[in-house]
C-alpha cells in the first residue's frame, strides 16, 4: 500500500478530515486562539465577531479555544479506552478462540451478559460507581465495547486457527506463545484494526451521550458532547454554541466511519463482502 487508498476518494477524504481535525485539536490550542477557561473574556452569548471568532458562551468565554480543546478531549477520550479494549480483547479472544473448552464457554457467556446489558444504563451505573470524569467514562466505554471486540477476535481466531499451517506448527512443537504471537496475531490484526476503528466512532457516541446527560468530563474542561449539552440550553438565543461543536462531532464520527469502511475493504475483504 504505497499510496494509501489510491483511487478511493472517500477514504482519502476521511484521512484528510481526520488529519485536519487532529491538527486542530492537538496543535490548535498552542496557537494564540485564547484561553478556554477565561470567564468574562467577552460579553456573554455574543455571536461570532472579530474578538471572538466563534462567539462567546454564557459565561463570556470565547468558544474557539473551547471547541479546539473539545476536539482533542473527544479524540483522547474515545481512543484511549478503545486501545485498552483492543489489547484486552485480543488477549482474551485469541486465548478463547484457540484453546476452546471451558474457557471459551466462560468468555462467550460473559460477553453475552455484558452485551445484553443496555449500554446507556451500564455507562451510567459505572460512572456512578467510579465518579464522573475521565476515569468513569473510560471504564464505561471499555466495558460497553469489550463484548463485541472479544466476539470479533474470537470468531476470527476460530477461522484462522482451523487452517492447516497452524495445525502443522502445533504438531511441530511450537509453544503456545509462539503460535499466538507469530501465527495468529498477524492474521487477525486486520480484522482487529477494522473493528477498533468502528469502535472509536461508537465510543465517541457513548462519550458524547454521557456528556450530554451531564456526567462527562468535569467543567471547565469540555468535550464536544458537553459543549453541545451546554449550548443546547441557549439554542434559541445563541445557536452557534451548540451548532459548532455539534458539526465537529458529526464530522469526526463521520470521518472515522469512512476510514473504517476503507480499511475494511482493504484489510479484511472477507468481512467486507459479508462472507464471514
Amino acid at each position, binding site marked *: 500500500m504505497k499510496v494509501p487508498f489510491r483511487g478511493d*476518494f*472517500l477514504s482519502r477524504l476521511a484521512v484528510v478530515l481526520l488529519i485536519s481535525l487532529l491538527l486542530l485539536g492537538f496543535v490548535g490550542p498552542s496557537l494564540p486562539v485564547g484561553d478556554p477557561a477565561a470567564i468574562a473574556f467577552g460579553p456573554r452569548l455574543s455571536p461570532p465577531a472579530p474578538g471572538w471568532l466563534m462567539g462567546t458562551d454564557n459565561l463570556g468565554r470565547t468558544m474557539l479555544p473551547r471547541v479546539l480543546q473539545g476536539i482533542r478531549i473527544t479524540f483522547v477520550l474515545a481512543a484511549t479506552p478503545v486501545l485498552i479494549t483492543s489489547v484486552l480483547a485480543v488477549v482474551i479472544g485469541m486465548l478463547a478462540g484457540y484453546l476452546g473448552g471451558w474457557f471459551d464457554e466462560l468468555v*462467550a*457467556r*460473559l460477553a*453475552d*451478559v*455484558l*452485551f*445484553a*446489558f*443496555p*449500554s*446507556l*444504563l451500564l455507562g*451510567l*451505573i*459505572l460512572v*456512578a*460507581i467510579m465518579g464522573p470524569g475521565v476515569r468513569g467514562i473510560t471504564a464505561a466505554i471499555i466495558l460497553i465495547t469489550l463484548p463485541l471486540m472479544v466476539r470479533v477476535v474470537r*470468531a476470527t481466531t476460530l477461522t484462522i486457527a482451523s487452517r492447516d499451517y497452524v495445525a502443522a506448527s502445533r504438531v511441530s512443537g511450537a509453544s503456545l506463545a509462539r503460535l499466538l504471537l507469530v501465527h495468529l496475531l498477524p492474521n487477525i490484526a486486520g480484522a482487529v484494526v477494522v473493528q477498533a476503528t468502528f469502535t472509536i*466512532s461508537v465510543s465517541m*457516541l457513548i462519550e*458524547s*451521550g454521557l456528556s*450530554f*446527560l451531564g456526567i462527562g468530563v468535569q467543567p471547565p474542561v469540555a468535550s464536544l*458532547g458537553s459543549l*453541545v*449539552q451546554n449550548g*443546547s440550553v441557549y*439554542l*434559541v438565543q445563541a*445557536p452557534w454554541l*451548540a451548532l459548532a461543536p*455539534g458539526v465537529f*462531532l*458529526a464530522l469526526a*464520527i*463521520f470521518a*472515522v*466511519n*469512512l476510514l473504517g*469502511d476503507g480499511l475494511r475493504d482493504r484489510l479484511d475483504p472477507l468481512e*467486507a*463482502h*459479508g*462472507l464471514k
Partner: protein
Amino acid sequence: MGYLGYLRFAMERLASAILTLLGVSILVFTAIHLIPGSYEAVMLGPQAPEAARERLREKYGLDDPLPQQYMRWLLAFLGGDMGIALCRSQQSIGQQACENADQAPIIAEFARRAPATIQLAFMAAAIANLVGIPLGILAGLSAGSRTVRGSSRAISALGMGIPSFVLGTLFVYVFSVHDLGLTVGGYVPLSEDPEANLRAMVLPAITLSIFGTALFARTTRDAVLTVLAEPFIMAAVARGESPRQIVRRHVLRNAAIPVVTVSAVNMGYLLGGAAIAELLFSVPGFGWYVLAAIHKRDYAVVQAGVLVAAVAFVAVNLLADLAYAIIDPRTIRRGRG
C-alpha cells in the same frame, strides 16, 4: 433438517438466553449496590435523625448480606413481583430527594410507561426498515455507478455518525421556535387522541430512526452486492430470468440474514437511545424512568428496568437466531458463531 433437530436447537438457544439473563441480573444487582450514596440518605436527607435512617434500612432489609437480598429479589421477580418503586416519581433529577410514602408497584409503573416507549421504538424501527431497506436495495442494484456507490457510503457513514441528541436538539430548536405543525412535547396516549399523539411522537421517532436507517441501508446494500457477485446469479441471468424475478427470488432471500442480524443491533441501539429522545421531547416513557432511578438510588427500579430491557434484547436476538435457522438451516450445524 427435521423438526427434532430444530427443536433441540431452539431449546439450546433458550437455555443459553436464560443463563445470560441470570448473569445480567447478578451484574446489575452487584453494580448498583457499589454506587456510593445510600438509599436512606436520599430518602430522608441530612436532617433526619440516625434512628429514622436505621428504621428505613431495617424496613427494606438493606442491612442483610447481599446474596440474601439478591435471592429474595430474584425469587420475587420470578413470581411476577418486580418489587415496589422506592421512589414514586423518577422524573425529577437534581436537587430533589424522594419520599417513601406512596409505594407504587414497579410492574404497574412500567406498564403505565411502556406503551410510550414501545410506540416510539416501533415507529423508529418501522421508519428504519421502510426507508433503509429499499434505499439499500436501490444502492446495491445501482452499484455500477461510482457516484451512487460513493454517496451511499458517505450517507450511511453520516447517518450513523450524528449523535441522536444533536439531531434531536436541532429538531427541538426548529420546531419549538417555528410553528410547523409537529409538536415538541405534548404527549397524549394513542388511544386517547391519535392526532395529538402522532404530532408529538413523529419528531422523536425520526430522531431515533436515523441511525437505524443508515445501518439498514448499508447492510442491505452490502448484502445485495455480495449476492450479486455469487455465481448462481450469473446462472439465473443465463437462464433468462428477468431482473425482477432475480431480485425477488434470490437477492431478497439471501440478503435477509444480515438484515435480521442488524435488526437486533438496531434494537439494542433503540433501547438506549429511547431514553435520550424521551428526555428531549418530554415523552413519559420507560427509558427515562429507569435512567432517573439511578440518581435516586432506587435499586428496585434500576434492577427491574435493566432486566426488562435485557429480556427484550435477548428475546429479539433469540428470535433472530431462530429465524436464521429457518432461512438457512446450515447455521444449526455450525453452532455458536
